[in-house]
């Protein structure tokens, strides 16, 4: 018997309309765990570098994590992996909610799509009964609307539905996949889903999920619940409220708008509005949120409440989480009510809440600077907020200038020319980033921004405090019950870390310490993504309930795989390296490992070089960022090494130029 996992994947060929149930190899689970790990293995094996994002040969994989559907609290992530049309690298976005556990209960670990359906379809998985159904009546429908309609027509209120809106159908490069209170938004995976002619996947499961050693597993779960209770009652002192507790940043619950609006950038990530906040705004925005927010809600089997149902006056209710609360507001220099209202439409269209506002602000900046002109915006309203609605409507339909903007700032700037590139200034690996511009280089964040292949800072940061505590007493208090550290040395680093003076940024933590910190933080995220654990209970917050010491026990007792910290660390390194290798095959090299040019005003080129060199070395990559032969063989990735040899990767160490053609220009 297989434990925690079901041992079966669904293989769907959308071109032929075929459906297969395929048994998986338990050896792969031992080596790559599940979720992201096994997704990476499948993509490596079946999607060679020649396959374009919008080729029928590109795969779109929806995977439940290894422990999804077990009683492990908060373990509910769906990991969606494919080749991104925007970055041309592996995209792996995660979504919480209820979908992954339902897939497990239906008897599958993954759904793997290949090919393209000539007509719009959706997949209906009802335990053993799986069918591809016509979705032509759902064309153009909103993501949430689609989910509702599907549940109605199937007469199955318990079905969990992941769907795309108009943006995905029209292959917008930052289209999301929406699923109730959650979404997989980054990397344009919604565009790949739309390209495949797949509108939605509905799933209902009523089968059992087994764990290997029940008593042990339950004891671990209880400990986690107890610790969540403890952490909820004991927020961490001395850090800002959204970092003090557990869960995804508690944007829905906490009125923290002052901090974000004063510290993050407005418009096209340009203007910092220090002193923006005042009592009147505070009162007005608090009223807005309190009046529109109906309820704080959670994902499957989790006691936290990171999401909310939002009902803007006169608009349908929708669900929201995290920082998308403010991204539209700040891009448009508007207020919270505007942000919450436009997010309703954006969610139905199915677009990423980070990239979308920025793309629109970018367009308006080009307009103000005469690079785009009135001819590009026929009929655009004069008022600021109206413009954002107008642009959003054009982008998701790929109408006029919207067709260009739908490719994201990087590709749009190239297409527009006339110096537009300078305005696409907030990207890493062609992908829009949080609107943050800071003064002095932070070496830890430098490494994370440069090398994080999830290309989103929230998907690599966590665990280690973002800034030093001012006093020794505070540091001592912090390290006292910091049992999550993989090694005692991290406590010493934190104890010695000062806001200024000799032991302060950018030279302290030292280069090696920074590398260790980043490596630890990244490892925890990668483990989460294989197990299906919510980062909000694990890799993201300070002092989380899941950590490197209890994870091996969860895997052993849950999946029945012998696991200790070392084996787990090595497994995570294995698929992390495999993802690196996949991207290396697609031309990614050291030149791509960099933060946005203007992220920090004060840079330290020599230190940055040292940091990158040391980090590559720690990771077992050569100076170009390519995993070395020794590393690959040590991880049992001999097949990667052989492929690298065959493709002469090591001799062609410059990689491909990072400006290949946009997939959209090569429509098929």
């Amino acid at each position, binding site marked *: 018997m297989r434990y925690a996992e079901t041992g079966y994947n669904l293989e769907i060929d959308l071109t032929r309309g075929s459906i297969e149930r395929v048994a998986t190899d338990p050896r792969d689970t031992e080596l790559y765990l599940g979720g992201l790990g096994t997704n990476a293995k499948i993509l490596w094996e079946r999607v060679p570098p020649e396959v374009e994002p919008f080729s029928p040969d590109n795969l779109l994989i929806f995977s439940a994590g290894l422990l999804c559907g*077990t*009683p492990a609290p908060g373990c509910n992530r769906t990991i969606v992996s494919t080749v991104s049309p925007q970055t041309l690298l592996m995209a792996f976005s995660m979504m919480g909610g209820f979908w992954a556990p339902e897939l497990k209960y239906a008897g599958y670990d993954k759904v793997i799509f290949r090919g393209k359906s000539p007509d719009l379809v959706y997949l209906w998985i009802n335990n053993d009964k799986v069918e591809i159904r016509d979705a032509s009546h759902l064309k153009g429908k909103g993501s949430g609307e689609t989910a509702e309609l599907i549940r109605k027509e199937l007469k199955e209120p318990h079905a969990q539905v992941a769907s795309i809106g108009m943006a995905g159908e029209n292959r917008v490069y930052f289209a999301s996949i929406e699923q109730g209170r959650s979404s997989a938004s980054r990397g344009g995976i919604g565009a790949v889903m739309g390209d495949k002619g797949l509108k939605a996947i509905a799933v209902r499961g*009523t089968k*059992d999920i087994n764990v290997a050693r029940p008593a042990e597993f*339950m004891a671990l779960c209880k400990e986690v619940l107890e610790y969540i209770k403890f952490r909820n009652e004991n927020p961490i002192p001395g850090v800002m409220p959204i970092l003090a507790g557990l869960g995804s940043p508690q944007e829905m619950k906490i009125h923290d708008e002052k901090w974000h609006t004063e510290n993050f950038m407005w418009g096209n990530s340009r203007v910092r509005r220090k002193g923006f906040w005042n009592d009147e705004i505070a009162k007005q925005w608090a009223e807005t949120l309190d009046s529109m927010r109906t309820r704080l809600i959670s994902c499957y089997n989790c006691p936290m*409440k990171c999401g909310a149902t939002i009902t803007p006056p006169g608009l349908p209710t929708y669900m929201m989480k995290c920082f998308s609360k403010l991204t539209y507001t700040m891009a448009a220099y508007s207020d919270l009510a505007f942000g919450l209202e436009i997010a309703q439409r954006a969610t139905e269209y199915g677009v990423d809440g980070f990239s979308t506002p920025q793309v629109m602000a970018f367009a308006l900046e080009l307009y103000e600077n005469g690079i785009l002109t009135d001819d590009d915006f026929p009929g655009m309203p004069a008022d600021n907020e109206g413009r954002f609605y107008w642009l959003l409507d054009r982008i998701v339909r790929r109408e006029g200038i919207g067709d260009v903007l739908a490719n994201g700032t990087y590709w749009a700037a190239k297409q527009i020319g006339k110096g537009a590139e300078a305005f696409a200034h907030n990207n890493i690996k062609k992908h829009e980033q949080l609107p943050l511009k800071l003064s002095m280089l932070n070496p830890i964040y430098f490494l994370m921004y440069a090398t994080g292949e999830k290309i989103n800072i929230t998907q690599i940061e966590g665990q280690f405090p973002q800034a030093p505590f001012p006093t020794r007493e505070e540091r001592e208090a912090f390290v006292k019950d910091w049992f999550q550290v993989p090694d005692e040395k991290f406590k010493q680093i934190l104890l010695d870390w000062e806001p200024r003076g000799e032991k302060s940024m950018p030279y302290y933590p030292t280069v090696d310490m920074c590398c260790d910190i980043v490596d630890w933080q990244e490892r925890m995220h990668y483990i989460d993504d294989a197990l299906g654990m919510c980062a909000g209970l694990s890799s993201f917050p300070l002092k989380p309930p899941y950590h490197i010491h209890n994870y091996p026990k969860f895997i052993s007792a849950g999946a029945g795989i012998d696991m200790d910290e070392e084996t787990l660390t090595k497994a995570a390194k294995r698929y992390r390296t495999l993802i690196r290798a996949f991207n290396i095959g697609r031309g990614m090299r050291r030149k791509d490992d960099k933060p946005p040019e203007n992220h920090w005003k004060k840079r330290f080129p020599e230190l940055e070089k040292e940091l990158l060199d040391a980090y590559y070395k720690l990771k077992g990559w050569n100076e170009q960022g390519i995993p070395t032969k020794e590393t690959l063989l040590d991880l049992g990735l001999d097949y990667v090494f052989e492929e690298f040899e065959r493709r002469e990767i090591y001799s062609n160490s410059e990689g491909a130029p990072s400006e290949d053609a946009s997939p959209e220009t090569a429509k098929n």
Partner: protein
Amino acid sequence: MGEKKKKIVKSITIDVEKCNGCRACEMICSAFHATPQYSSNNPARSRIRLIRDPLRDIYLPVYAGEYTPAECMGRDKYVIDGKEYDECGFCRASCPSRDAFKEPDSKLPLKCDMCEDDPPQEKPLCVQWCLNDALIYEEREEEVEEDVKVEDVEVGLESMIDKYGLEKVMDTISRMAAAKRS
């Protein structure tokens, strides 16, 4: 009529305002009742059901009550605070008209047993796992008329009889018994 006796009444107060819709209650109920205990879980086997419709702000944990062989003659529909609940939304019965509170494979009825266990649990499992205090457990002593306690097996058999007829069930049981003995 039974005679009057002191009895511990176990009650769970459901505060729907506090529910975050996580369904941990469903999951853990099914795990607790798995054999061996906790070896598997499957919310479809749970004796508590969360009726959840976030867009209408409906979060309604309902406990499985008695098995009923026949559905009601009519349907009821509640509207509370402007929210319209589904037909039969509040009903606890394991009833032929719907899927709730039945084993997904055998369709045998399920009923909340307050997690009776030996040794007894401090609190029912669903309550233990609801960290949001949407489910609050209380015990109080009351004088009640003692009922004849209907065994789980009996409820199960009754539903089989309703479905297949007494004769068929008897036949099957004697055939199985004979097979077991041989």
